[in-house]
């Protein structure tokens, strides 16, 4: 096994992620995985990998990497500057690198997270079925933590591309400063009355307390219905759950959480979670209510869109 890259600068928070660790939530192990599944899958496809291989999830400010072996790389997701030896190579397209090349990923100008894929996918030990980093439990990824200067990462074997790949412009998402999040009511519908009008009627701001566990929002308070207790018996949580703590400011739960003890007024639909994860502090989110049938329609559309992209190459 040969190393693929050496970390010169780690960036703000760069971790190895794949499609997530499914099946261990009952033991307190959250699913983890890439927060923006669309960009994650496209990054892999751009270098000729199956869509679920392990990549680097870059947060706001990217890393600088020294290349140790020939490979194709691609960065997809947030808009940021990607350079090889100082020359811009752009996002949403593959580029060939050779040993000694230095790849630098800059600061996001739109969006929050980008995915850097390598031929074959990054090779770290599989822990409980996944290579995803879960820093809270110190498992997965490289030694269960985010990257540091000096780290070396290996890649699984894979064939170099016969010709470079690029995602057509029309298929590239933009990352606006205001996103709509569609959500279904529940699980604790009966804990709220006026709260629904607030949540589905008022815009919310993303606060700096936004990470892989969840996004704290700020805006019109979401009150509990009169007589409802401030907490519930702890129950499992799903990514997308909109939890209302005693300060009445919503928290949208993400992928590093397994249980919670506050009532959840609504759950953001799966296809919109990646868009939330691409917002940064100060961005606006607007919730829109959909029923479960509509949510399942959106889910099927998102899967179909993702398959269309797999068929491009």
């Amino acid at each position, binding site marked *: 096994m040969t190393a693929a890259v050496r970390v010169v600068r780690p960036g703000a928070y760069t971790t190895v992620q794949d499609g997530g660790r499914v099946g261990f939530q009952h033991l307190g192990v959250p699913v983890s995985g890439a927060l923006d599944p669309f960009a994650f899958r496209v990054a892999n496809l751009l270098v000729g990998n199956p869509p679920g291989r392990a990549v680097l999830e870059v947060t706001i400010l990217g890393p600088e990497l020294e290349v140790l072996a020939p490979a194709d790389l691609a960065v997809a997701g947030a808009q940021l500057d990607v350079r090889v030896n100082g020359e811009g190579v752009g996002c949403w397209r593959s580029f060939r690198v050779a040993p000694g090349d230095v790849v630098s990923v800059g600061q996001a100008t739109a969006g929050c997270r980008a995915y850097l894929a390598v031929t074959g996918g990054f090779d770290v030990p599989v822990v409980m079925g996944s290579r995803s980093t879960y820093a809270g439990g110190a498992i997965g990824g490289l030694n269960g933590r985010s990257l540091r200067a000096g780290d070396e990462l290996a890649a699984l074997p894979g064939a170099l591309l016969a010709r470079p790949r690029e995602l057509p412009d029309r298929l590239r998402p933009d990352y606006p400063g205001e996103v709509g999040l569609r959500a*279904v009511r529940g699980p604790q519908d009966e804990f709220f009355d006026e709260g629904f009008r607030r949540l589905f009627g008022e815009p919310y701001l993303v606060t700096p307390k936004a990470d892989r566990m969840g996004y704290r929002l700020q805006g019109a308070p979401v009150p509990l219905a009169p007589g409802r207790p401030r907490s519930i018996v702890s129950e499992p949580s799903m990514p997308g759950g909109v939890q209302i703590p005693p300060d009445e400011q919503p928290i949208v739960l993400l992928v590093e959480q397994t249980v919670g003890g506050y009532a959840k007024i609504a759950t953001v639909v799966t296809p919109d979670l990646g868009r939330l994860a691409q917002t940064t502090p100060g961005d606006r989110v607007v919730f829109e209510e959909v029923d479960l049938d509509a949510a399942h329609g959106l889910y099927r559309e998102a899967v179909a869109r993702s398959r269309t992209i797999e068929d491009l190459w």
Partner: protein
Amino acid sequence: MPEPRVFPRARYRIAGDRGLLAEYGDGIDPEVNRRVRAMAAVLRARPPAGVVEVVPTYRSLLVTYDPLETGAGRLREAIDALEDRLGEIPVPEPRTVEIPVCYGGAYGPDLGFVAETHDLAEEDVVAIHAGTLYQIYMIGFTPGFPFLGGLDPRLHTPRLDTPRTAVPAGSVGIANDQTGIYPVTSPGGWRLIGRTPLKLFDPARADPFLYRAGDRIRFVAIGEDAFRRLGEDAP
């Protein structure tokens, strides 16, 4: 406070486009939790089409599913039908796991507070805490964190007002009527009364976990020497 009720049939809640919660009672109660775990066992043994994951907690069961394969309505029907066959699938026999704990001192910085709050000597707190057989109601928060029911009312103590930013792995704590163990270093607001040298979660072991929801835990008081020795030999 009224006694928790066991629901005659599951009550369902929508947890987004991939999750369905089945609730079996309105509070923390051994019989409610037994139903939850029995249903989890049935669902794992005979998973309806499209089921991805089954997560039992105190009184509710989360069933995650693939919306391309099934829907909430179909899943409800399937779960209801399995409920009628609960008796056919045995619930795994609970194991009793002994957890050695060094109480007090640097290992349990809040032991004194718990003792003072209840007008007890520290030794009494230890004797009461280690003298009870606890049921694991659920595992969550961090990998392997057991939420234990059955804490003696003489030890019920509120959480810290300001949680600690880093509770050492192995710390044994109390939060109101619950007791539990932090398997990995994490933030936490429970009152810490001791620490175990065992690694409760070790992804390098064949079975990374020492217990499952439904098992029982008994704490065994040990001294500092034993703590160091067991720490070195810990599995």
